[in-house]
């Protein structure tokens, strides 16, 4: 049975630099997987490759049954299937600045999926409600707090009901209380929707508290993986220990 995401031997080269040197990675449906590593370890590159935002040199990516091959990024018209199966939440939320929260969420369902406006609005309001920001539906991104904006961005990514949700550093702009609330929400999303969540983060507390599994990326290779509790309590690889130490030193 195929997982929500299966990455095999992923290699990415930019110029002279080999950013990913053969990464194997699997995310199961209903699973919260934390992708950890220091800055420049290649976390964002993994997410961007899976989301077909950048080309890769070799390996394969199977995202919920849609297989990406090495080489240039295919034309958008060939990626329709992938787009409906994989959602992405960007680090700085990247909400459309000229649209209110509700319109941010309904834009893709109406224009990319061809839903009626009424249906898109109903689904969007439901998502905003579930994420606790329905009262901000008419607000523009500038008027939202960091936490609110992020929830709207999650609602936007979830509107097409993807099987796999990619999130780039979701906790970087949040205070501890909001971080906990976000963790609970993501757990619910994974359990109830049967979705796979791949979350890049260097927030050890968040990973320990909410993620099922942790993969550690160092210098373009996967150096350690396993249940969050095991990996983060009893790290075996120097890179993991480094990561934990670094975290503890600077809260």
């Amino acid at each position, binding site marked *: 049975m195929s997982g929500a995401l299966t990455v095999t031997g992923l290699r990415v080269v930019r110029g002279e630099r080999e950013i990913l040197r053969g990464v194997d990675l699997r995310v199961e449906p209903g699973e919260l997987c934390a992708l950890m590593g220091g800055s420049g370890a290649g976390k964002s590159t993994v997410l961007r490759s899976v*989301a*077909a*935002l950048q080309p890769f040199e070799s390996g394969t990516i199977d995202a919920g049954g849609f297989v990406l091959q090495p080489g240039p990024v295919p034309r*958008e*018209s060939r*990626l*329709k299937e992938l*787009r*409906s199966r*994989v*959602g*992405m939440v*960007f680090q*700085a939320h*990247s*909400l*459309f*600045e*000229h649209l209110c929260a509700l319109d941010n969420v309904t*834009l*893709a369902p109406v*224009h*990319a*999926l061809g839903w009626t406006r009424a249906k898109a609005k109903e689904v969007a309001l439901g998502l905003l409600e579930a994420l606790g920001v329905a009262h901000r539906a008419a607000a*523009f991104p*500038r008027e939202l707090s960091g936490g609110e904006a992020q929830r709207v961005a999650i609602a*936007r*990514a979830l509107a*097409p009901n993807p099987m796999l949700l990619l999130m780039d550093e979701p906790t970087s702009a949040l205070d501890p209380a909001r971080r906990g609330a976000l963790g609970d929400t993501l757990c619910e999303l994974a359990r109830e929707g049967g979705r796979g969540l791949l979350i890049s983060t260097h927030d050890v507390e968040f990973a320990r508290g909410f993620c099922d599994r942790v993969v550690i990326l160092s210098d373009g290779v996967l150096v350690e993986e396993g249940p969050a509790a095991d990996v983060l309590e009893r790290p075996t690889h120097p890179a993991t220990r480094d990561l934990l130490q670094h975290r503890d030193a600077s809260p």
Partner: protein
Amino acid sequence: MRGVIRRLRGSGAILVLSTLLLAACGREPASTDTAKPPLRWGGDAEGGAPFVEADPANPSAVRGFDVEIEGMIARGLGREPRFVQVAWASIEQSVERGDFDVGMSGLEDRPELRARHAVSIPYFEFHEVLAVRPEDRGRFRRLDDLAGRRVATLGATMAYSMLLDAQRRVGVVPVSYDDDVHPYTDLVAGRVDAVLLDNVIADRSLKRTGGGFVIQPEPAATGHYVAVFAKSNAALRDSANEVLRARMRDGSLEQTFRRWGVWSDQQARYFQRVLAAEPEGETAATSGAERATLATYLPALLRAAAITLVLSCLAMALAVAVGIAVAAGRVYGHPALRALLTVYVEVMRGTPVLLQLFVIYYGLSGVVRLPAFAAAVIGLGLNYAAYESEIYRAALLAIPRSQLEAGRTLGLSEGQILRLVRGPQALRLALAPMTNDFVALLKDSSLVSVITVVELTKQTAIYATNVGSWVVPGILCSLLYLAFSLPLSRFARRLERRWSTA
């Protein structure tokens, strides 16, 4: 030395002799007298033969019957003529400013001219004649046959006044040009149905075009060419009149006119009349000089202001549409298309819009015969499109990549991302520079008067020429432009504020 003077004073005979000598010196030709300044005279060499044209043998010199007559006047006054080039429509204003002593370039004797300046006796009599296409020879015999038809002439002339009068009486549509060549080429091209100008210009154009139109035999009016002086310079005018009469009498004027092929029996009879009626003076001066008042010109100014506004709005709409297409092509297009569009932008920005208007209206008339207003909209629109496209291109490139990637991960196509995400955000960035451009376009729209569209500035110039002052027309015109541009800037600021808080 003192002793010598005392002795000279003492001698009455010597005193008389020296006085005569001094007086004689004064009458000597200027070539031997360095004390007398040259007689500066203003004319427009663009007006061409037979009035004033650049000498083909020596393009820095001018020739023509006005040049020769001016030479006679100058030498008669014991001065050297010195030519000053000036735009024909500005001769009267310039002479009053003191840019030169006398203006001459086929200037028509008009009551307003005499009311405002010192004017010489008329030195040439002409007829206003109607030129029509050969097939219209039978039906357009007189001005009154041209109700609802477009009739061309030179702006700020007696013929233009006649057309305005005919507009009121029978509904003729006057079309004003800045030169006397294009009225006839547009007549042949079918853009206008008749041309009303004096017989000298009409004959010259008939020779130049080699047919293509006919001149109706019945003159529409009779007029005269005069030289114009500053109002305060009546003394010089009087001296010049003496010289002109003398040259009429001794046949020099006749010889000149014969040389330029404009002599006729009519001219001979006219000279006889002038010489018999001596001193004729200013009899024409008071022949009902109607002063143009604010009330008579305000409706025309407002109409012209409306034309400026409509023209600018249409040109801007075109500029925005083409600008968006060019910007999109330069950001998304194939390298070949990008190169092509870059050439378009650089050519449109790198050449004068005046030149572009000429090319579109006159240059392309062999291929596509655009009405003047359409040519103006297209010319200004395509020119401004180049500037708009650069604004949009910069704005498109300023939208963060993550916004576009967010669109892609949501399954929007490139076209949808441009239309729904990138474009609307870029438009907000482009708003302030666009407003600036629209205000600039409002002002640049005054250039289209060169292709016969009478807009606000042109109408103001006509008004100013008629009242002989730029003060009131200038203030009125400025107020009208400000009435357009100020609310526009305010509107843009409000929109910007709303979007920046949103």
